């Protein structure tokens, strides 16, 4: 796509010169996201109102211009890459918290509000928004809804989908619809809100989010447990859950990642451990002591090395910083990483980890294993240098093998990061041709001209 001068000036006129840019410098910084992929944007627009977005879409629809909606650009599947050119619609300036309805546990926000900013707004009132992706300090809530983000707390509390009550959406035609709302019909027949959540910018542009919030639990306990091997740690995970305990969090890191995290945080993680589990339980104080005791016993049965309960909020916070920043911290080992998001039934965790370890040796690439172990969601991080072509090729082979393994074990290729461009080639391995056909039809029903994040998830063009 190459936009003509009159098209560009029309788009600029909708948002005003201060909220649009065409400079080479600024186009360069909107070509990427947190993956290695790059696109070629032609204009960046920073709308401030639903009305402006509606006008942009009406024009884009009329002219057939691709529109790539973007928040903080922290996504891990290439979902915001403007690979077909056109418009990057950056919603970072729509960042107001519009309404708080504590009686009904609802907050209404614009899509550019940062996840952490909402948490900081709610915390003094005793509330929080459960989805907590690792990038929560930077990522936007609009992006969380578009990707149906998860996070460590999801094991107990569910993913973003479970917290979206309604959306104001600008359709590809420019029409504005409100789906659901503060007090939605439950269950809505042909639930459009649920369809929109996780649609990765392909069905509509969210301009207002009606989100459910929760009251903090009375108490929580955070535990750190180390093991000689990932295998033992994974077995401990299965055992904990089979005891009937549902922790809020059950996170695993392998030795490579323990070391990366320690390099950044210096909090005294055991660099020699084969794996660690970060476990958190919440609820009423009296039931927590029992749960901690059971978890400790189960870990010991699985040959745990050290078992520690955090003694202060500060200690808990330090453990969480280590966990949340570890993906970024791997660049200390090699400059590039490829991050997978496969999910397998929890009982298959030891098996997939073994396969990944074998792949790492076979292809001679360091692979770190990070997992939301409680729900079988793994983030294998393949480390390499994107400037070495031979390595890049090996990485692609390994990516494919990891996805294959997950599917063979009855899992899925994407737990929470979305499909975007990165996982698209693997979609046919997971879904039947009939299911993919239905997805394409669905996309075309909302966006017949294929201009909204065109050809992301499924190719329809």
């Amino acid at each position, binding site marked *: 796509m190459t936009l003509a001068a009159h098209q560009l000036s029309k788009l600029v006129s909708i948002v005003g010169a201060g909220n649009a840019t065409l400079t080479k410098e600024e186009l*360069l910084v909107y070509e990427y996201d947190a993956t290695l992929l790059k696109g070629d944007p032609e204009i960046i627009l920073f709308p401030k109102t639903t009305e402006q977005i509606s006008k942009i879409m009406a024009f884009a629809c009329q002219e057939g211009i691709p529109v790539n909606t973007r928040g903080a650009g922290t996504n891990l599947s290439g979902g915001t890459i403007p690979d077909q050119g056109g418009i990057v619609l*950056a919603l970072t300036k729509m960042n107001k918290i519009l309404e708080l309805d504590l009686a009904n546990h609802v907050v209404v926000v614009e899509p550019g509000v940062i996840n952490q900013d909402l948490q900081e707004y709610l915390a003094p009132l005793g509330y929080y928004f459960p989805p907590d992706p690792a990038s929560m300090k930077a990522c936007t809530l609009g992006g969380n809804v578009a990707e149906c983000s998860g996070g460590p707390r999801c094991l107990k509390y569910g993913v973003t989908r479970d917290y979206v009550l309604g959306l104001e959406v600008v359709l590809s035609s420019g029409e504005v619809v409100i789906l659901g709302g503060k007090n939605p019909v439950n269950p809505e027949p042909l639930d459009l809100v649920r369809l929109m959540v996780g649609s990765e910018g392909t069905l509509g542009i969210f301009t207002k989010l009606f989100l459910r919030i929760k009251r903090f639990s009375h108490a929580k306990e955070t535990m750190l447990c180390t093991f000689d091997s990932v295998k033992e740690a994974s077995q401990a995970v299965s055992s904990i859950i089979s005891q009937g305990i549902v922790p809020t969090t059950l996170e695993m890191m392998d030795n490579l990642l323990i070391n990366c995290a320690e390099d950044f945080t210096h909090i005294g993680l055991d660099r020699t451990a084969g794996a660690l589990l970060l476990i958190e339980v919440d609820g009423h104080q009296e039931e927590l002591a029992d749960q901690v005791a059971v978890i400790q016993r189960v870990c010991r049965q699985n040959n745990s090395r050290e078992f520690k309960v955090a003694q202060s909020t500060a200690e808990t916070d330090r453990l969480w910083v280590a966990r949340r920043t570890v993906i970024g911290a791997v660049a200390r080992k090699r400059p590039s990483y490829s991050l997978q998001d496969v999910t397998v039934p929890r009982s298959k965790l030891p098996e997939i980890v073994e396969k990944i370890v074998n792949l790492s040796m076979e292809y001679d690439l360091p692979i770190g294993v990070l997992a939301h172990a409680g729900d079988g969601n793994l983030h294998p991080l393949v480390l390499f240098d994107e400037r070495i072509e031979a390595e890049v090729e090996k990485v692609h082979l390994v990516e494919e093998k990891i996805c294959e393994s997950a599917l063979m074990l009855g899992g899925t290729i994407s737990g929470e990061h979305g499909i975007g461009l990165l996982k698209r080639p693997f979609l046919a391995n997971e879904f039947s041709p009939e299911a993919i056909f239905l997805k394409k039809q669905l996309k075309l029903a909302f966006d017949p001209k294929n201009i909204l994040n065109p050809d992301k998830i499924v190719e329809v063009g």
Partner: protein
Amino acid sequence: MSILTAPENYELINTCNKCGFCQANCSVYKEVLNEAYATRGRLRLIKAVADGQLERTPLYEKIINSCLMCEECSKNCPSGVQGHLLIQLARQDLVMKKGLSLIKKIPIGTVLPNNRLRKLSFNSARLLKKIIDPLPSLQSYRGIDLKSIPIADEDFLSGYQPEEVGLGKKGSLKIGFFVGCLMNHTMPQVAKSIVRLLAAHDCEVVVPAEQRCCGTPAYTYGHSAISEEVALSNINLFNSLGVDKIVTGCASCGKMLKYYSRIFEKNAEIEEAANDFAGRVLDLSQLLIDVLKIDLQKFALPLKGKITYHDPCHLVRGQDISSQPRQIISGVFGEQFVEMPTANKCCGAAGMFQGFYPEEATAITNKKVASIQKSGADYVVTGCPACLLRIQGSLRLNNMPQKVVHLAQLLDPDSAANIV
């Protein structure tokens, strides 16, 4: 070819894996909400220039120069990318390829490094202020409250009389006092407090009049020839005095003085002297707490109301100093000490940043002002003259009554009596 493509530098430019977490901490990005001003974006552009994909355009210069150098991105980058050092490198590259603009070149390259010219300029500014201060239309310029920038009739170094503060006597620790330009010309009373305080704690204080600018402005804007020159003369001067420690009450000076060892790490002739110098540099709060271990109980100062503390970037991140000043304030004033929210965020001064990017600087400072208001404090304490002036000015422009004082003033009975 440029310094950006030198292998060791180019490798560093390539260490960012674009996770985007730097957006969370960048005060400038938070105002403009445009990726170009997040560290990830700035590094992308530096790489584009290094790769020959982008010219050194005016917009590129603006993006590179509109960084606070607050080091938040560097401290918070999971991969350990030193964003502020890479931006400094890009500024160095700009100076080498395009030179400095006059508006930076005159103060940075000519006036500040030259003691006589600097004195002359501050004196002229004082006379100019006498004319413009009464004019209502010139109360503030680009969000800077000119009126609350006091320029002393006589700068500290020119008027320094050891006898005046009861000095000249021997002490068990010999201290070289590095005053710093801003403290020297705008708050000589703070410099005097520091000298009195040290003298009262068994220190022999040496204040060499020939000391020069620490080099921060030149270094920050990439003019390394100047920063190296002043660094070398400061190293030679203080190393010749035989002092045990070199102490400053300016966060930026302290950070720079400690950094002298890095500046000369590849220069075999100077390296040793630079390390010798840098190894002795301490912030005032470090000296008081870590070395002198002063008895905080004995200070009975007449300050009423709540006291909060603002972390200067160049102390909390530049030198990893955050507990010593707090120990001092809470040690002396007990429960009068209250924390403000986000005490360690940049105040928006950032040297010349406030003048070049008034809109962003004002928004950033107003957040600091709001934090101070939230804390309920009557006094704001800090350890950096630039932060002090910026915050005091913005409080006044916002019609807020709080007073901003230097840590040293809190501990000096003569001074504390004056600020009540």
